[in-house]
C-alpha cells in the first residue's frame, strides 16, 4: 500500500505563541517549532499499516525551509522518504490555497491512502482533509479513532461527541486521525541514524505547475486583518454558602451551559 502522511510544523502549543506584527502570520521565530502532535498519530498509523501490509510510506509537508526539522522528526519514526513543497511565494497561504498545493503534490505521488492528523495545534480549522478530498475527487473519512484496511476497502470508526460512527470508503481516500487511534512510537537511535539517509525531495510551485498568484497572500481567500492577544485569565467566582450555595452552583452551571 502506498501511503502518504501529511505533516506540518507548528509552534509548540505549550509555549507562548505570537503572530507577526507586519503580516499577521505565525511568528516562527518566537516559539519552539515542533511536529504537529496529531501528525505523529498519523505517521504511527501509516507505519502500522506498512508493517501489516507492506508498501511505502511518504511524508509530505508544505512549509518554509525550517519545516525540514518536522520532516526529519517524522522520518525518525520510520517512513521511507519525504516530499517538501518549498517556495517563497507560499508565504501567507490560507487553507484553500494550501489544499491546492498539497493536492497537486499528492497527484505526483499517486497514493492509495492519505493520512493526516485531525487538526493542527496552530490553525485548528480541521478542513484540510475535506478540501484535499474535494480537489482529488476521493473520499474523506475524518476524525478516526480506528482504521482497518481490507483489500481496497477502508473502514473507520469516526469519533463524535456522543460516540462513534462506522464509515467505509474505497481506496484511494484520505483519513484524518485523532490521538485516540494509537500510541506513537518514540524515535529509536536506529531510526534517528536511518532518517539521515532517507531521501527528501523538494518541489517548487513551478514543479507542481501552480502559478505564484494562485497561492500566498495573492491567492488566498482569507487574510488575517488584525489580531488581539488573549485576555488574561479572569479570577473565578467564589460561592459563599449561606443556605443558597447549591442554588448558586446550579445557576452558575446553567449560565455556563454545563447543565
Amino acid at each position: 500500500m502506498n501511503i502518504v502522511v501529511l505533516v506540518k510544523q507548528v509552534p509548540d502549543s505549550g509555549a507562548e505563541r505570537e503572530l507577526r506584527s507586519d503580516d499577521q502570520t505565525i511568528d516562527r521565530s518566537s516559539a519552539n517549532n515542533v511536529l504537529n502532535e496529531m501528525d505523529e498519530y498519523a505517521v504511527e498509523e501509516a507505519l502500522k499499516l506498512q508493517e501489516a501490509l507492506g508498501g511505502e510510506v511518504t511524508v509530505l509537508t508544505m512549509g518554509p525551509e525550517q519545516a525540514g526539522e518536522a520532516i526529519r522528526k517524522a522520518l525518525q519514526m520510520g517512513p521511507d522518504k519525504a516530499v517538501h513543497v518549498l517556495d517563497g511565494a507560499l508565504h501567507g497561504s490560507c487553507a484553500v490555497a494550501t489544499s491546492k498545493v498539497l493536492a497537486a503534490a499528492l497527484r505526483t505521488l499517486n497514493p492509495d491512502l492519505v493520512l493526516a492528523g485531525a487538526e493542527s495545534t496552530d490553525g485548528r480549522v480541521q478542513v484540510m482533509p475535506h478540501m484535499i478530498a474535494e480537489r482529488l475527487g476521493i473520499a474523506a473519512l475524518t476524525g478516526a479513532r480506528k482504521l482497518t484496511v481490507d483489500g481496497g476497502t477502508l473502514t473507520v470508526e469516526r469519533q463524535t461527541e456522543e460516540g462513534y460512527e462506522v464509515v467505509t470508503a474505497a481506496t484511494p481516500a484520505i483519513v484524518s486521525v485523532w490521538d485516540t487511534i494509537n500510541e506513537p512510537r518514540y524515535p529509536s537511535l536506529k531510526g534517528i541514524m536511518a532518517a539521515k539517509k532517507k531521501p527528501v525531495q523538494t518541489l517548487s510551485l513551478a514543479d507542481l505547475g501552480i502559478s505564484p498568484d494562485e497561492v500566498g497572500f495573492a491567492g488566498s481567500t482569507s487574510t488575517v486583518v488584525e489580531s488581539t492577544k488573549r485576555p488574561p485569565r479572569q479570577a473565578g467566582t467564589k460561592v459563599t454558602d449561606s443556605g443558597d450555595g447549591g442554588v448558586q452552583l446550579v445557576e452558575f452551571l446553567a449560565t455556563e451551559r454545563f447543565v
Partner: protein
Amino acid sequence: MQLTEELEALRASVRDFAREVVAPVIAGHYEQHTFPYEIVRQMGKMGLFGLPFPEEYGGMGGDYLALGVALEELARVDSSVAITLEAAVSLGAMPIYRYGTAEQKQRWLPALVSGEALAGFGLTEPGFGSDAGGTQTRAVLDGDEWVINGSKAFITNSGTDITSLVTVTALTGPDEISAIVVPSGTPGFEVGPGYSKVGWCASDTHPLHLDDVRVPAANLLGQRGRGFAQFLHTLDEGRIAIAALATGLAQGCVDESVAYAKERRAFGRAIGDFQAISFKLADMRTRAHTARLAWHDAAARLVAGQDFKQYAAMAKLHASEIAVTNAREATQIHGGYGFMNEYPVARFWRDAKVLEIGEGTSEIQRMVIARDMGL
C-alpha cells in the same frame, strides 16, 4: 564537548518518553515498591536496551555515549527506571556480549537487547562488596555440569518476571574466580524477597541463594579463571553509565528547583529572587554541568579505544558526590515539601545516596584514581 546531532535527537526522544510515559506513573510504583513492567516494555520497544549493541543481535549500533545520554535523560525524571536500564545493559547483557561464545550470544542476547528479558550480575556477596576478590561462592565441575553453592547480595534485575539469567562469579579453584551463567528457574537457585530500600524503590533488587545449583559446563562465561578481570572491566564501563545517571539526577534537581524557585513566594517575592536561593541554583547547575563534561570525556575515551578506567572512576566519583549535594540543596529549597515523598526532589534525595556506593564505592574510585598516579 558537543554531542552529535543524532545523539541530541536521541536525547530529545528519551526526554519526551521520560516526561510523557515515566513521570505520570512512577511515584505510584515507588510508593508501592512495584516494578514498572509497562515502562520497561516501552523502553524495549524504543530500543533503549539495545543502545550499545550491534544490529546483528537486534541492537541499535550505538555506544556508551548513546547509553549515557539515555540514562541521563531518564534519571532527570526517575532513577529506578534508569538503574533498571543501566544494570540490564552494563551488567546484564554486556558481559554476555563481551565474553560469551557465539552460541551463548545467540541464545541469550536477542531477548536482552530487545528488553523482553533482563539479566542480573551476581558479584557482591553478603560478606564481600568492595573486596570482591574475596568471593566465597564455589563452583565445582561434576562431569559436564557446574555445581554452584553460595549467596549473592543486592543483585539488580535478578527477580523480575522477565529475568532470564544471572551471571554469578564463583571460585572454581584456589584463587581462581570464574563467571557462570545461571538461568532463572534453575533448581536450587533461590531468589530471596526484594529488599526494602531507602531509594530506587521501583527497581528490582534481591538476595540470591545457590544451593547445589547445577548448570551445563558450557555456561562458563569467558575463560575459566578470568572472572575477576572480566568483571573489573565490566565495572569500569558501568561507572561511565552510573556517572551519566548521577548527572541526570543532579540535573533533575536543578530542573525541579528552578521551577519551584520561580513560583514559590516568600516575604512578598519569588524565592528565586533571593541570592540565598539563586546562588544555590547557580552552584547546582554548575555541578551538573561539570559532571556531564566528566562522563562525556570518559565515554569518548572508551569509544575511541583509549585508556578510560581512571577517567571513568573520576566521572563516577564526581557525579555521584555532586548528585548527593544537589539532592540535599534541592530538598532544602523546597522546604517542607522537599520532605514529602510526592515531590520528585524527595525521591531524588532518597535515590542519590546509593550512587556513592553501587558499582564501586567512592572509596574504591579514589583507590583507582590514586593508583593511576603511582600511589
